[in-house]
């Protein structure tokens, strides 16, 4: 291998990048756009669930309970219904996700038997939101029950201390504010790197075929490995600049806590970038059209990184067969590492396994890409 030839390719490639506004745009604008779009667009937090109430009793007690719902940050009271038909309608047309129906005799039951029953109707088209809403509703009602119980014990002159035999005192670790964005943004960084890396390199070889410059290039003494290095190194630099942009946005704009070390972050980002660049390059060698190559590269990197990396869906909740498939998704290792670095500040030692897997993956992809290119027109 001659460094002279690698350098010649690098210079040529850089000149062409600078002069092709399209590839520059892919390189710099798209990461910004995606970070904002995905950073703001994806949120798993459920707040301000629209709620409608049908208070059939209209007593002091029922209004008390409803006030607790409207005071909760998880619900937003949209209005009071006056009939079941109205409740039905507001759930049907999506004005409300949850309806609370307080029956007549609610306060009487509460006073006489110490047990009132409230009906909650849930729109479960979005099961995730529905189950969260049910949980929040139970919590609101439980706290109301506790108060009712407390008052009745006090009225009978009982002791307050005996109320809660076992109490959970939860402390949340790693993502103390329970902001789902903190959990999602590291995944978004991985996704953006996967898209940008594979898109940039998927055009390199296909462009030479399309423009007819490949015929001359293969007639020169250039070696496949020299060609690959010369073509990918400029894109690696651009990719690392993109990584800096994404990470800076994550930390300074989205205020995701970063607790790991920068060397670990850049080392693993470099490995992941190597993987996606090589996948894009391999596709570019195999499919000799720019449009085709960029589509296939997108399919091979974006899809698995979105679905199978644990970025949006937790891997341990997947069926065993799908879990097995995630081991061949490079994004899986990078997302694991990123989340650990951002939220846990995990030391190198604990990340050894995913880092080794990612490094092996990168090595394999480099070999695959380097061997893919054949200097022949056959």
């Amino acid at each position, binding site marked *: 291998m*001659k460094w002279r030839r690698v350098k010649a390719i690098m210079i040529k490639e850089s000149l*062409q990048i600078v002069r092709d506004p399209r590839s520059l745009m892919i390189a710099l604008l798209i990461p910004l756009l995606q970070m904002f779009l995905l950073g703001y667009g994806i949120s798993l937090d459920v707040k301000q669930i629209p709620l409608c109430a049908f208070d059939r009793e209209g007593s002091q007690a029922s209004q008390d309970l409803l006030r607790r719902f409207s005071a909760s940050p998880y619900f937003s009271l949209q209005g009071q219904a006056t009939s079941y038909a109205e409740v039905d309608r507001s759930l049907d047309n999506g004005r409300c996700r949850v309806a609370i129906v307080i029956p007549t005799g609610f306060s009487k039951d509460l006073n006489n038997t110490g047990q009132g029953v409230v009906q909650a109707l849930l729109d479960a088209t979005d099961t995730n939101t529905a189950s969260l809403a049910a949980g929040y509703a139970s919590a609101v009602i439980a706290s109301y029950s506790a108060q009712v119980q407390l008052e009745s014990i006090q009225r009978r002159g009982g002791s307050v201390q005996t109320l809660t035999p076992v109490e959970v005192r939860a402390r949340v670790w790693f993502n103390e504010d329970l902001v789902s964005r903190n959990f999602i943004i590291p995944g978004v960084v991985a996704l953006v790197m996967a898209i940008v890396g594979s898109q940039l390199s998927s055009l390199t070889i296909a462009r030479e075929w399309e*423009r007819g410059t490949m*015929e*001359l290039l293969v*007639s020169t*003494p250039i070696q496949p490995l020299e060609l690959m290095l010369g073509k990918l190194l400029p894109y690696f630099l651009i990719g690392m600049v993109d990584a800096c942009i994404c990470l800076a946005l994550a930390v300074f704009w989205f205020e995701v806590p970063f607790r790991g070390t920068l060397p670990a972050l850049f080392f693993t980002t470099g490995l992941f970038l190597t993987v996606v660049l090589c996948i894009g390059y391999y596709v570019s060698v195999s499919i000799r059209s720019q449009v085709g190559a960029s589509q296939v590269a997108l399919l091979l990197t974006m899809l698995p990184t979105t679905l199978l990396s644990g970025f949006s869906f937790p891997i341990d909740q997947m069926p065993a067969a799908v879990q097995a498939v995630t081991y061949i998704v490079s994004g899986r290792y990078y997302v694991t590492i990123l989340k650990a670095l951002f939220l846990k500040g995990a030391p190198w030692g604990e990340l050894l396994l995913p880092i080794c897997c990612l490094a092996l993956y990168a090595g394999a992809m480099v070999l695959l890409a380097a061997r893919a290119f054949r200097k*022949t*027109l056959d």
Partner: protein
Amino acid sequence: MQNDAQSQIVVDALVKRFGSFAAVDGVSFEVGRGEVMGFIGPNGAGKSTLIRILCGLLRPSAGRALVAGIDVAQDPEGVRRRIGYMSQKFSLYSDMSVVENLRFFGGIYGVSRADIGARLRFAVDMAGLTGREDALVATLAGGWKQRLALGAAILHRPAILFLDEPTSGVDPSSRRRFWELIHTLAQDGVSILVSTHYMDEAEYCHRVALINRGRLIALGTPLELRQHALAGELLAIEGNSLGDVMAQIRQAPGVLDVAMFGSALHALVDQAALRSPELLQLLSSTGRTNVRVHRIEPSLEDSFVHLVSASAAVAGALA
């Protein structure tokens, strides 16, 4: 003509098949040092395929090809270091400047840092691009592009040059200038194999190989091909609607071959002086009085047309 030691290119019974189609079908020839060898033939005759094999871009299906003494099938890399290649389609980088392109190929061919300056100047001068070094290649006219491509191909001073239809689509004065460059290089000892479908350009070559349907149908100097390929003398027949009488002329005594040349007919006869009045008489018997029959010097095109029809006849007889 030369033995292996002197010949820069030796091609021996070379075959290239694509599926069942033989694009190159048992071709043999040699090219000596400083020789300009022209490949003449219609589109699809196999010229480009042959050149690509010799550049190590395609693997031969059978036969042997040595370039600079190296077998192209066994060591294509060794061949690539020693040759310059100009492909049929322009393949420099349009979004880079003249000097950026040259620098790139200088780097790829490993031209040393000490030499690169002088080589770049030489290539720029030769292409007539002095003062336009920083112009983007996309902005250059056809003739300049071709000369720049030649400049890029000789930057590393190869002993052998392959030029695949270098002058197609270039204006006549640029073509002439391009051929002058080729001869300058040949005088410096560079062996040049150049393909063209312009018959007039064949006259600039030291030797010409006529290729049709993947086969070499004649090989010699332009003079040899003009004079000896035709075993007879040539008559030109000019007049109106001569196509209808071609068959009759072909049947006439002493006529060996007839072919259409534009609106005229060229007839190959055993003795021009004897047959010319006979043909005139034949024509007037069909009511054509406004015709001229006169002897002409055969051009390469005449030879080529005759050789192609002769080889087709042989192939037909064998089949």
